[in-house]
């Protein structure tokens, strides 16, 4: 129910705050997604989409940090 999937913004259509949408690519599938809640989203960003609405821009630095932490753990465990 709370499933939200990350996809990449390939185009932004419209400039009205409330009705702006994006074409978002999920692997090979492209869907139209409401952008009202992610005013900062730009083409190329990854957004997290739930029920046809983007609820966050994925933070690339934080994503990299999580993976880097994991790498440290590997060295500890080794």
């Amino acid at each position, binding site marked *: *129910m709370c499933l939200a999937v990350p996809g990449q913004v390939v185009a932004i259509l419209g400039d009205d705050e409330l009705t702006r949408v994006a074409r978002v690519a999920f692997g090979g599938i492209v869907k139209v997604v409401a952008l009202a809640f992610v005013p900062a989203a730009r083409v190329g960003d990854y957004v997290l989409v739930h029920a046809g609405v983007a609820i*966050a821009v994925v933070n690339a630095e934080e994503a990299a940090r*999580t993976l880097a932490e994991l790498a440290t753990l*590997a060295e*500890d465990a080794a």
Partner: protein
Amino acid sequence: MKYLDEYRDPAAARRLAGAIRARVTRPWTIMEICGGQTHSLLRHGIDQMLPEQVTLLHGPGCPVCVTDAEIIDQAIALAATPGVTLCSFGDMLRVPGAAGSLLGAKARGADVRMVYSPLDALALARAHPEREVVFFAVGFETTAPASAIAVLQAEAAGVDNFSLLSAHVLVPPAIAALLAAPDNAVQGFLAAGHVCTVMGDDEYRPIASRFQVPIVVTGFEPVDLLQGILACLVQLEEGRAEVENRYARSVHPGGNAAAQAALRRVFVPAPRTWRGMGEIAASGLDLAPAYARFDARTRFRPAAPKAAPAGPCLSGDILRGRLRPTVCPAFGTACTPEHPLGATMVSAEGACAAYYRYRRAAA
């Protein structure tokens, strides 16, 4: 796909499981509150990677499962109203109330449609001005913003044949109700990453300190889940009870301000009855007085028949994490996803359905 595959790496998951084994010295009980996480934990066998001392309980985190029979009966009454088109998410159409399910109503001729987004329901209203389109709005804080944007767009475009039957529910009051129960066994919580993507994690701080439980915001992939479980166990072992964000790529400090503003504008907190848990104060969202014209309850006053009598289903105890699905005598025999007796078997994210799908052999 990017931001999914790297969090599904089996080698990384094994290393995290090793780190968990190295940290745990005593028995601990952790609850995940989100049905999506329950499903992922079982699907990837994460519960079986954990040391024996760690017990995972599955909480009331499937919004379809916790929706009270009375609201479903209101939806069925609305669907039977001439001129009304009733839309909702797929799982919601199959859940039984006292008067059957919405799919049953559809079979009897009601105009019931499955949609993927509340915005699809709004599009239907615009395409069919002669119909009254009602969106049966279920979901936690993750989903409520999508309902809110549909209402705001309807208002802006002057669409007046669109309304919501709101069954939206809020997570923090349910966590507090579980922790306040005298026989509570939960020592730490995994908070639902997508609920917190919208709301942030600030509302969990008073709960963590009042009940002295660690609450760790956790994502949905195996690596995310194991990192959340590890962080929760480290806090428990060290005697800490803090709110910790382990899903920072999605959950930004403060959450999503624009989505929260839309929620505050369109909805107000309201008491809500949860299946299996009874009424919890301020645990739902209903339309704010300024948006009453988009409230299907105000508009149609659907009759609410008496609540369903309790059958053999134990889903109330399952939803509170007190019983595991496999102890239910009906599990996998009288009750299957094809012939569900209760909401926790109907919804793909219900705990009974997750165990049926991934654990039948072990049952």
